[in-house]
């Protein structure tokens, strides 16, 4: 896939953000990893996908009108079986149609449910004075409450990305507190560097974030991706 052309084409259709599966594909080109997933069009496809990925799975609605999926009732986690899947799928779509009437539904993502990790966030934006900048910080809902984040101008080297990570409070948790093993900090530094490259190479990207990113002792995975384009 020519990702540059692809992003331009999305803009041409009048849409100013990438759908989640599109975002994974583009980000994947830059070495940014996400959990295994499939895009499905109906329950049967979904159950097959879940079986091949392996339960438990998460399902998420994909719609060009919906950026905040959770607010729209468009996410169900921890689905353990085909039967649970069928109920979850139908309930989710019903909720979405109630909350966002008329939303065009492009499909549903079936994604492998990941074990618990340290939730961080990595993002980037184009600042009017500084150009492309990257962010790292505590993820999940903590990002808005604690604002434990630090910024750097892209592009940056590994040393600088590590310094950026070390400026946050969540760094202490990433180093392993009590019995917890330390997380793969180098992988997080890579993710920051890759995010910087993404902004540098695709000028159409205005803002993006991976939140949460799950940090593990041997890797880190972006379990959600939001990419906003310059409209």
């Amino acid at each position, binding site marked *: 896939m020519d990702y540059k052309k692809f992003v331009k084409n999305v803009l041409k259709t009048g849409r100013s*953000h990438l759908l989640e599966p599109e975002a994974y594909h583009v980000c994947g080109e830059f070495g940014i990893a996400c959990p295994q997933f499939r895009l499905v069009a109906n329950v049967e496809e979904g159950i097959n996908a879940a079986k091949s990925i392996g339960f438990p799975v998460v399902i998420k609605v994909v719609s060009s009108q919906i*950026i905040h999926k959770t607010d729209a009732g468009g996410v169900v986690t921890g689905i353990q079986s085909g039967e649970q899947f069928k109920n979850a799928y139908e309930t989710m779509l019903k909720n979405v149609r109630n909350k966002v009437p008329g939303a065009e539904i492009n499909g549903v993502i079936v994604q492998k449910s990941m074990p618990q990790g340290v939730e961080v*966030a990595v*993002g*980037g*934006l184009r*600042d009017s*004075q*500084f*150009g492309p*900048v990257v*962010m790292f*910080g505590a993820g999940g809902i903590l*990002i*808005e409450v604690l*604002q434990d*984040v*630090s*910024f*750097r*101008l892209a592009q*940056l*080297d590994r*040393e*600088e990305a590590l*310094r*950026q990570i070390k*400026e946050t409070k969540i760094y202490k948790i990433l180093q392993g507190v009590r019995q917890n093993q330390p997380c793969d900090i180098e992988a997080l530094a890579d993710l920051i560097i890759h995010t910087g490259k993404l902004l540098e190479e695709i000028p159409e990207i205005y*803002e*993006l*974030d991976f*939140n949460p990113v799950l940090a593990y002792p041997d890797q880190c995975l972006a379990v959600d991706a*939001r990419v*906003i384009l310059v409209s």
Partner: protein
Amino acid sequence: MRVASQVTKGSLSGVFNARSIAIVGASPRPGRLGNQIVRNAKAMDFDGQIYPVNPTQTTIEGLKCYKNILDIPGRLDLVVLIVGADECVHIVREIARRWDEKGDVAGIVVVSAGFSEGGSAKGLAKEKAMLEPLQARGIRVIGPNCLGIADQYSGVNTTFDLPPYLKGGVSVVSQSGAFAASFLMWAKDLELFGLSKFLTVGNMADVDMDEVVEFLGEDENTKVIAVYMEGIRQGRRFIEVASKVSQTKPIVVFKSGRTAFGSGAVRSHTGAVAGNDKIYDGAFRQAGIIRAATVAEFYHTICALSKQPLPRGKRICVLTGIGGPGTICIDALLATGVVEMACLSDHTKTHLKEILAHTAAVDEPQGYVDMTASVTEELHEEVIKTVLADEGVDGLIYLITPPAFFSDEKLVEHILKAYNSFSKEKRKPLLNVFTFGSHVAELRRLFERGGIPTLEFPDVAASVMANMVWHSEWRKSRLDYGL
């Protein structure tokens, strides 16, 4: 006539090293801005020419007065404008004519206001009209709406509120004339620092912060760059320039206008938490710029950096005869998260215990020495020498309320002797805290003249030391990566 097709911007050096200055709007009446600027220019150690310009006068402050710019004989390097905005627009045309005929004027300082700063279309148009003939000829413009420039080495001074100043290694660049002047006047009586160059940028119609910092980076008289900023136009370029300069000269910034949140219209988490200030914060850190959190920290960090070497490590010793302020200092040091307490060697500990009173606390808690009040001026020399010689000490903060029975001269003599017993390469930063403030003004001046910074507050001293450590660590990390 000169052809202005291939314009190269003049260097700021032509402005700071002007040998002749015209002051347009000079006034014979004391108390007027146009009079004070002439007086200040004259008061400097400046052996060039000063030309007051005022069509209604023949002499001002004993200097021959000229009717206009074109009448000034010989070479003219710098023009100061203190007339109204409309008149400025008119006078720059004369300057342009002069340049076309003689090719001299290197730059102008526009003190006058009434341009883009008010945000009106009229003001903006005037600024453009004033700028156009000058930029077409590569003539540099400082301001408008600024205090102007001063250089203690060349003797140029275009300001109305800066008297001649002690020479030194600090250069000040500011978006606020009042802030910059306050910093200088605050430090003046106690001689807390010496000045190299001073520049307030005003509306930055032509000369911008990044260019000034780049210029100061190469100025041999500048050792530390102090920057007050409210906002910058070319953030990325500023940071690129600063990261180069920071490798050899510390840049200390006070940035006002902290805003907690960016626009509510953003759609990503990153956008929502970004806010302008956090990006500035990250960018400054990336470039090794020391960002001071308070005005006191800004002032004293600059003073300290202009006199003392950077610490080679992060282990700091607190030496005192006064328990309370000593404890405040340790609390503040450790709260920075940047420094560690010193690891005194067994030899140091044994020796200090031998020479100090038995009630003295040596390395209790770690890196802390309380000499108690039973200590003489002479003993200070041996204690400070011992502590500074210790491999486990990278910097020293000394706090005292000098007792009335101490002789100022003797205390200074012994502490300086201890400090100067080390060769330049082996010196470590030493900050003195005299909690009696200006009550011990003479003592502080003696230390300042000897190159040892003096402060009033133990917590400010801690932040200053932490800033020095942080900057030093940044520089080391850049060197490690060959950047």
